[in-house]
């Protein structure tokens, strides 16, 4: 059959272009650290959840942070929330994920808490001329959030 020829080409191309493994870490399938799934697929409730997910994998893949260290902090965050759920707050796997990531980068002196807060304030004040009337309880050395 003529199709066999085309098939052979595909095989050769696949063999000749070994992509970097897209699975830098083995995600938990079950247990507290397992990400939410639907029929095996990961489910993100909002775009930022997907970005926070990709960020951890990129950092782990590059060896910047240890996935296992992150995972242990994630398990601890989830356990802490379950032990004492914040009132009026639904459980959010990716909230815990993000908090664990913040802990890891802070513990490894990659990004300080104050830097995150400052940058977040800058991002919040992004829309030009959009005044939130934000009262700031104390000042930062630079990057005033209400510029």
């Amino acid at each position, binding site marked *: 059959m003529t199709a066999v020829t085309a098939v052979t080409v595909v095989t050769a191309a696949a063999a000749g272009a070994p992509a970097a493994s897209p699975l830098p870490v083995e995600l938990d399938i079950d247990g507290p650290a397992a990400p939410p799934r639907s029929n095996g697929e990961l489910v993100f409730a909002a775009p*930022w959840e997907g970005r*926070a997910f*990709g960020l951890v994998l990129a950092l782990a893949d590059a060896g910047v942070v240890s996935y296992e260290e992150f995972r242990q902090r994630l398990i601890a965050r989830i356990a802490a929330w379950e032990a004492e759920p914040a009132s009026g707050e639904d459980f959010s796997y990716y909230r815990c994920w*993000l908090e664990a990531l913040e802990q890891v980068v802070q513990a490894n002196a990659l*990004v300080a808490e104050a830097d995150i807060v400052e940058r977040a304030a800058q991002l919040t004040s992004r829309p030009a001329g959009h005044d939130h009337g934000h009262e700031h309880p104390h000042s930062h050395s630079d990057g005033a959030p209400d510029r």
Partner: protein
Amino acid sequence: MTDELGTTGGSDIDLATRAEALESLLVERGLADTKTIETFIRTYETSVGPMNGAKVVAKAWTDPEYKARLLEDGTAAIGELGFKGPQGEHMVVLENTPAVHHVVVCTLCSCYPWPVLGLPPSWYKDPAYRARVVREPRAVLAEWGTEVPDDVEVRVYDSSSEVRYLVLPERPAGTESLSEDDLAALVTRDAMVGVRKVEAL
């Protein structure tokens, strides 16, 4: 809705902003790059998962020539749809028929055709499944609710690092009018491992 004004305490800043702030700082410091982050999101969100295998199955059900190629050279036919593994492991497709039912296991570890099926479910790695499906496949299948009549042969295939198997389930009756996309939606991961059959909705 969280208060998007936030406070310097940090925890009141909405999560999306906090995530964006952290990402921008890490990228700025050369610790992560946006392209890599996006590649991982795309890979896990859309490219890797049972949907890939389901598309292969649905195409085989609707395109006899594709099915012939698939059974002859699984790696190549699956590659036609753009699904390729990084290690170039050989994909073999096992066709279920009214006379033969296939089920896949990896007795040594948990070799799994992840480019088409995504990440292996925990039961696939479970020592009990790995041992029992070889010894008493009909009993294991029955526990999955899959009754295989005595006159149907059960064949168990053991995966390895070189060869990965994908079961091509039988197309359920009553699906003649369904499109390829609708058919793909019926195909489950479990059916492509061979522990279940595909059911029409």
